[in-house]
C-alpha cells in the first residue's frame, strides 16, 4: 500500500467488505473491521483466529468477508500472517499486498502473545490488528488479560469472595513497542479519524511489522444497551481509562491528551460489569488513572 490515504468520510470507498455477518447488534468490533477494510482496500489478505469476528463471518455458507481470509487456530494469528507474507514474498507478490492478522484481545494478549512476539521479533512485514472488547466474548464473556480491573465476567463473577477481575489490563502497546517495531498505536472505534489515520500509517510501514490495538465496546459483554457502543468508547477515552497512544520512530506519545478527564463514574455506571463497584472503589480507580497519566506524560 502506498500514497496518501484520506480518512475523510466523504473520501472513503462506498464498497462494504463485510455485510451480512452474524455479529451481535451494536457490535463494536465490526465497526473496526469495516473501517479497517475501507482503509486497507482489496489488496489485503486476512488471517483470523477463533474470535467473535471469525465465528460471525467464516461459517459456511455465510462467508461475508470480501477479502481473501484464512481462518487459523487461536494462538496462531501472527505466525499464520507471517507465513502468508513469506509465501507472497517467495512468489514475488508481497509488495502490493497488505497481510493482516486480525484477532481479539484474548487471542492477542493471552493465547496468541507468543506467536505475536515471534513475528514482531523477526520483523515480518505484517499488520496486526487487535480489536479489544476486554474479555472472551465469543465464548460467553470470560476474563482475558485485557479485562480491566474490577470488571465482572463469567469467570470473575464476584460472589461471596468478591472475586471480580483483580489484575489491571495488560499494557499491550508497551509490550509490542518493546520489540522495537516501526509502528504501533492504540485507538478506539469511537474516534474513527484517529483509528483510520493510524491504520493508514500502519499499512504503509514497509520495513517491518505494525500493530494497532483498537478498543471496541461490546454490548452483551459489558452489559449496556446496543446504541451506546460509540458513546461508551468515547467515554473510555475521555475518562482517561483507555489512552490513545502511538509508538513511532522509537518514541511513545499520547495522541489524545485530555485537558480535563470526564468523571470515571460516567463511563462505569452504564455498564453492568461495573455495577457492583462502590463510590469509594470508583474513587480509588480514578486515582489509579491519574497516576497512570502522570507516568505516561
Amino acid at each position, binding site marked *: 500500500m502506498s500514497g496518501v490515504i484520506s480518512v475523510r*468520510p*466523504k473520501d*472513503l470507498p*462506498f464498497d*462494504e*467488505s*463485510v*455485510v*451480512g*455477518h*452474524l*455479529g*451481535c*447488534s*451494536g*457490535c*463494536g*468490533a*465490526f*465497526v473496526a473491521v*469495516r*473501517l479497517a477494510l475501507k482503509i486497507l482496500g482489496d489488496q489485503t489478505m486476512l488471517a483470523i483466529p477463533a474470535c467473535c469476528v471469525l465465528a460471525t463471518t467464516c461459517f*459456511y*455458507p*455465510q*462467508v*461475508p*468477508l*470480501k*477479502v*481473501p*481470509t484464512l481462518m487459523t487456530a487461536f494462538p496462531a494469528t501472527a505466525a499464520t500472517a507471517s507465513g502468508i507474507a513469506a509465501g507472497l514474498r517467495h512468489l514475488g507478490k508481497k509488495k502490493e499486498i497488505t497481510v493482516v492478522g486480525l484477532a481479539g484481545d484474548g487471542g492477542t494478549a493471552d493465547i496468541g502473545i507468543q506467536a505475536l512476539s515471534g513475528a514482531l521479533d523477526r520483523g515480518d512485514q505484517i499488520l496486526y490488528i487487535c480489536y479489544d472488547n476486554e474479555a472472551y466474548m465469543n465464548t460467553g464473556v470470560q476474563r482475558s488479560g485485557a479485562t480491566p480491573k474490577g470488571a465482572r465476567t463469567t469467570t470473575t463473577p464476584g460472589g461471596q469472595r468478591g472475586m471480580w477481575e483483580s489484575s489491571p489490563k495488560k499494557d499491550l502497546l508497551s509490550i509490542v513497542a518493546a520489540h522495537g517495531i516501526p509502528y504501533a498505536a492504540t485507538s478506539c*472505534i469511537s474516534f*474513527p479519524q484517529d483509528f483510520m489515520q493510524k491504520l493508514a500509517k500502519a499499512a504503509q510501514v514497509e520495513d517491518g511489522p505494525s500493530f494497532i490495538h483498537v478498543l471496541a465496546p461490546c*454490548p452483551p459483554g459489558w452489559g449496556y*444497551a*446496543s*446504541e*451506546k*457502543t*460509540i*458513546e461508551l468508547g468515547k467515554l473510555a477515552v475521555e475518562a482517561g481509562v483507555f489512552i490513545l497512544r502511538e509508538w513511532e520512530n522509537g518514541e511513545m506519545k499520547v495522541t489524545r491528551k485530555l485537558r480535563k478527564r470526564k468523571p470515571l463514574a460516567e463511563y462505569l455506571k452504564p455498564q453492568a460489569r461495573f455495577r457492583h463497584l462502590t463510590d469509594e472503589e470508583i474513587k480509588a480507580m480514578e486515582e489509579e488513572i491519574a497516576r497512570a497519566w502522570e507516568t505516561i506524560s
Partner: protein
Amino acid sequence: MSPAQPLHQGRLIPHFPGGTVRQKTGSWRIFRPVLDVEKCNNCLLCWIFCPDGAIDREEKWVTIGLDFCKGCGICENECPTDAITMVKEGK
C-alpha cells in the same frame, strides 16, 4: 450447493468465494431506524458507525437498508442532527 460452492474439482474443501451472503439479519430487528431526510446533513457519521454496513450513501442523504440492519440504534444515538428515530417494528 449455491450460492456458496463448496465443491472444488469434485471434492469437498472448506474454501468459499468471499462475500457470500445468505442470511439477512434484518429479521433480528426489534426497532427500525427511520430517517428524516429534511434533517439529514449527510455528515455520514451513521454510515461510519454502522456495525453492519447497512447504510448506503446517496447524493444528498443516506438511506438505511433494512435487509441487514439489526436495529442496534447506534445511528440514532450518534446522529448530530437527530435525523434518525428508532420506531418499533410492526408499528
